[in-house]
């Protein structure tokens, strides 16, 4: 009987010790609450032009099948990235759709090791391929309703094309870290969970000059950083 209070006390002490150990261990690292964000807008001095088919003189009529290409999408990323960037997380598998002879989205940013799905949701065949150095692939021709996938292991810029429709193109930016964001319809971006420190932030757009800025992220604070890109 006398052992019971002793055991209870031991377990209580052990619990308190483990709690202290846990809190102490993580007190030494930048906590999620202490991290900040970099946010802003990417604008252009002159908007990038849409992707147009070649003037196909051999056609017997107007080509009306393709949708607009959203070349306004930019990618903002840290270069280099903080060490914690290389942590792994489970995220839904990204996809690059084919609709109306257009890749949707036109720009995709992924972490190295990600597998991207390429479903064909068009009325016609497509033949997705890339000859880019980080990832060369050719998915062949496949019909509507089918999907093929590609794993991207090497960081870099991968240009994606359709062999049948020369006006179809897209970009997949493969990063070795998670500190990147693709801009929304209005050019806004937000890179969350950035540990305090000084970084170089780069803005990329397929039609624009690359622009980089230095920025310091304070403890638990956001930084506004806007870009105004010029055409190449």
């Amino acid at each position, binding site marked *: 009987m006398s052992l019971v209070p002793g055991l209870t006390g031991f377990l209580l002490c052990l619990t308190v010790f483990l709690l202290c150990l846990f809190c102490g261990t993580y007190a030494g690292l930048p906590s999620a609450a202490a991290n900040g964000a970099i946010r802003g807008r990417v604008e252009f001095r002159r908007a990038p032009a849409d992707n147009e088919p070649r003037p196909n003189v051999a056609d017997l009529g107007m080509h009306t099948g393709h949708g607009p290409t959203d070349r306004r999408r930019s990618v903002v990323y840290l270069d280099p990235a903080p060490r914690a960037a290389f942590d792994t997380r489970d995220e839904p598998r990204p996809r690059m759709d084919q609709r109306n002879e257009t890749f949707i989205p036109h720009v995709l940013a992924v972490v190295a090791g990600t597998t991207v799905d390429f479903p064909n949701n068009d009325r016609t065949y497509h033949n997705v391929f890339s*000859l880019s150095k980080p990832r060369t*692939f*050719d998915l062949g021709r496949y019909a509507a309703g089918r999907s093929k996938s590609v794993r991207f292991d090497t960081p870099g810029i991968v240009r994606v094309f359709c062999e049948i429709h020369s006006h179809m193109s897209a970009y997949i930016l493969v990063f070795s870290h998670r500190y990147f964001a693709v801009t929304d319809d209005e050019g806004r971006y937000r890179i969350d969970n950035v540990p305090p420190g000084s970084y170089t932030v780069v803005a990329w757009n397929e039609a624009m000059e690359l622009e980089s800025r230095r920025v310091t992220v304070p403890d638990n604070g956001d930084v506004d950083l806007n870009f105004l890109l010029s055409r190449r």
Partner: protein
Amino acid sequence: MIIIASLRGRHFVSKILSVASLLLLLPGSVAAQWPSEPVRLADGRIRLGGEVSATFGATDDEAFFNYTDYERNALRTFRAVLSAQWRPAERIAFLGELRTDDLDRLGAYAAFVRVRPWANLPLDVQAGRIPPVFGAFGRQAYLADQILIGYPLAYQYLTSIRADAVPASADDLLRMRARGWLSSFPVGAPHDAPGLPLISAFRWDTGVQVRWAPQAFEAAVSVTTGTLSNPRLRDDNGGKQLSGRIAGRPLTGLVVGASGARGAWISDDVPGGPQSPAQTALGADIEYSRDHWLVRSELVWSRWDIPFTTVPPEGATIGALARWIEGRYRLTPRIYLAARADRLTFSRISGAISNGVAVPWEAPVTRFEFGGGYSLQRNLVLRAVAQVNRRDGGRVKNRTFFSTQVAWWF
């Protein structure tokens, strides 16, 4: 233009080497600026595209298997093409294409207006120097669509018949067997000149064309001044050619088409004969692609009315039948293999020099071409082919050619 002027008249190899040297001397930064996509001007209302190809191969001054009606060797040509589209409004566009072979002369291959009269109706009208509606290969003759270097026989091989000179008898025709590169006949133009292919892939005709293309189906009809064998800028006989094509896509990746054409083909300068002798042609084409495979095949039958002075027992018409099948398999994203089997045969005719026995009026030709391509970039391809030719007649019956090509387009 300065380059063109300085190269004019030089030997072919010198020209190619000169152009290659110029390209190699360009700084890398300049080469990096070469467009890979169409050039847009005037806020996208004007678009420019281009193609440059240099094809290297042995000369063929004896057999003339690959000579075209532009008197070029299709396996040994430097070609530069600039195409343009000006679209001043949503439903109207002006299109044109300038082309030079071996930098000798610059010609307008195409120049026409394209109009969609009703916004909600998939009907287009084209007028001017327009693309052919007949068959399929005539509209695939761009570098991005080609899988080999040589052309199908139906679209390139020169038969002996000419639009400006005709045989008086079967013997006149039989004497010219396998002489399509330079034939002559007693009636009409007295000089020697190249003959005509079944369909010319090197010139487009002039006229008006209407296409209706609802989903998965297409029908087109055109009225032009020339014929399939002899497309023309200006009419030389007052007759018009009517041609049409229907095509459907019953399955994804499958295109099936049927074509027909009929038009007056002999020049008014040729004296005598029946009024408006016609070229009549029928064609069928099919294309199927799946995964890394692409297969195309085409069948072309053509018949020409000949104003013989002495009509042979077989009648005053001669015919030809061409059929070919080609396929491509992509081994890797950069490398593909391709092959084409091709056969061109002719109807029979009898004359004194054949001892009254009916023989083909032209020497039948069989061609097998195989090779492959390597994509340095999406729009920069190296191709190499071997082409085996066999002709059942003529001075040179068999000839094998090897050819390589560098092709770039934007």
